[in-house]
């Protein structure tokens, strides 16, 4: 075991993947950096996740693109259909909009439309999350948007081991995977096993164990909820905290097993208040496992507005630990 950041774990996982399989290519904007310029050192991606790859594996496999998300996401999809394993970096998930046809209609449907003859071993790595003053078009958390598109797997890692492991598993899957990396978590450190083993898609992780209340959290809401769980323990409220790791496929059994103990569900998510992941999970539990609930489930999400810019407003927009504690205590009173 060793400690590393999510950024470094992803970087090492990419080195592992590219070294192990010559069909793995990495595609995106500024991922090597400095294309067409005479300067020396590479940028390695705006978040530094792809640094060093071009020097090791060459610019034939670490491919800087023009700012043309529709074209390069579609190119990656076509490449996955014909023998490559592309890892695409979509700098911010806010840019899903300009590439959405290629994701929603092309990547998501190719497996089905081929009757399973085509496999799509590809992953679109993108970033999510507010909290760094990036404003309304560089801060969204759009994982819930993709929930409505059959044919995609969706991962939201919150630890270095999960980030590296889910990335590796994503390239082993037949379905295309979109992985949402929270910008605020890139520097988050944690223990990892020496070889960064794959983490199966569809298996959640029990982060904190308790029998008073079940909290399901994703992305940056996981560490916020961990801190809340510690505070709540001091107040005698014992939290079962679940990080689903992939929201598609969703490990529903881990959640229902927990609800059998607690009967109380709080979902904390940085996606939308209406029709997002939190709503989808509450709906699923209510439809299939209503009898497990002692009280009405609760969701904690940002308000239904674009992400604001001013520090005060952005700070109030993102769910935080104190809010999670308050919501959990309220749920315990219900």
């Amino acid at each position: 075991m060793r400690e590393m950041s999510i950024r470094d774990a992803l970087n090492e996982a990419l080195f592992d993947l590219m070294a192990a399989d010559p069909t793995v290519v990495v595609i995106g904007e500024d991922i090597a950096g400095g294309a067409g310029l005479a300067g020396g050192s590479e940028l390695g991606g705006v978040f530094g996740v792809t640094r060093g790859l071009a020097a090791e594996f060459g610019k034939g496999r670490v491919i800087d693109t023009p700012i043309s998300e529709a074209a390069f996401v579609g190119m990656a999809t076509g490449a996955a259909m014909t023998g490559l394993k592309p890892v695409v970096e979509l700098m911010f998930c806010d840019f899903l909009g300009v590439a959405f046809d290629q994701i929603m209609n092309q990547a998501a449907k190719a497996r089905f439309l081929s009757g399973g003859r085509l496999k799509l071993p590809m992953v679109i790595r993108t970033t999510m999350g507010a909290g760094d003053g990036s404003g309304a078009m560089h801060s969204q958390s759009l994982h819930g948007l993709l929930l409505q598109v059959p044919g995609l797997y969706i991962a939201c890692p919150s630890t270095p081991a999960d980030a590296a492991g889910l990335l590796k598993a994503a390239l082993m899957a037949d379905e295309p995977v979109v992985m949402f990396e929270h910008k605020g978590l890139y520097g988050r450190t944690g223990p990892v096993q020496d070889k960064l083993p794959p983490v199966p898609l569809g298996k959640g992780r029990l982060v904190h164990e308790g029998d008073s209340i079940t909290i399901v959290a994703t992305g940056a809401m996981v560490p916020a909820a961990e801190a809340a769980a510690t505070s709540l323990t001091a107040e005698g409220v014992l939290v079962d905290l679940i990080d689903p790791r992939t929201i598609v496929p969703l490990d529903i059994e881990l959640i229902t097993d927990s609800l059998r103990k607690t009967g109380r569900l709080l979902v904390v998510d940085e996606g939308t208040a209406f029709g997002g992941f939190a709503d989808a999970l509450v709906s699923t539990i209510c439809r299939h496992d209503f009898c497990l609930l002692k009280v009405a489930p609760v969701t904690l999400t940002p308000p239904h507005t674009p992400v604001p810019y001013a520090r005060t407003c952005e700070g109030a927009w993102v769910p935080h630990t104190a809010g999670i504690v308050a919501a959990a205590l309220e749920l315990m009173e219900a």
Partner: protein
Amino acid sequence: MTPDDLKQVFERAHFIRAFEQEIAAAADAGEVPGLVHLCLGAELFETMLCAQLDGPRDQVTGSHRSHGLALAMGADAEQVAAEILGRAGGLSEGLGGTQHLLAPERGFLTSNGIVGGQVPLAAGAALSAKTLGTGGIAVAVMGDGASNQGAVFETMNLAVSLKLPVLFVIENNGFGQSTSALYATGGISPIARARAFGLAASTVDGGDISGLERTLERLVAWVRETGSPALVEASVPRLGGHYHGEAETYRSANEARPDPLDRFEDWLIRQGNSAEGCHRRKVRAREQARGAVERAIALPEPAPETLEVWSTRLSPVRAGGAA
């Protein structure tokens, strides 16, 4: 191409024509679930294009109007027909349908329901060929309507920037559904746009057999040998409606619609081939097309379990089972 090759092209193109006519008849008889977009008028061009290609090393992506391309790349006609008819035994067991024909095993990667959506995918096939060193090329076939889509422009630029072996093909039939290409398309011509991106580009008359042979052979060879992208714009008539059965009230009764297959037949006869020989080939093509479509009509529709496999595989909520 040898004289025998050209006679085979004639028969193949007529096979596609007859296939489309049989599909139209099947649609009229209520055998087709949805609307079909027939390639009437483009058969000769598509046959000549695909005769230059070597699937599955080469991969073609096409538009919603791709029955002919799939057949020209060698996809099994009965399987293509069964897919269009929504039958078990179709290319994808009837799950895809007329706009979603996939025969990657033969070099026809996919057709598409989104105008222009197939074009970035071809860049991907080109990237695979380049990275894996197969010597293959990719071909993105689209209509003039798609040539106004942003993703198409992005892909042309990307292909130049990354130096990808992809041939862009614009079948210009003058219509985007009911809208004239002259109305919808700014600038001088699609090839002027392509040249502005740095692509090698040519235009060709889709009914001129000599021009087709010369132009397609040159551009395909150029893409293959240089590994660089190119574009060809082919004028092809749309001999039918946007979809089969459309009233086409927007078209003029005086509009000339010269049939490339008639022009080709005249050319063959001028070259010394007999009219009887041409006739025999047309009859044989019609019989084969009728047989393929009739066999497809006789196939059952897929069982509901065909879908259940997918609803299970893609279920977002999966009890216990990791992917």
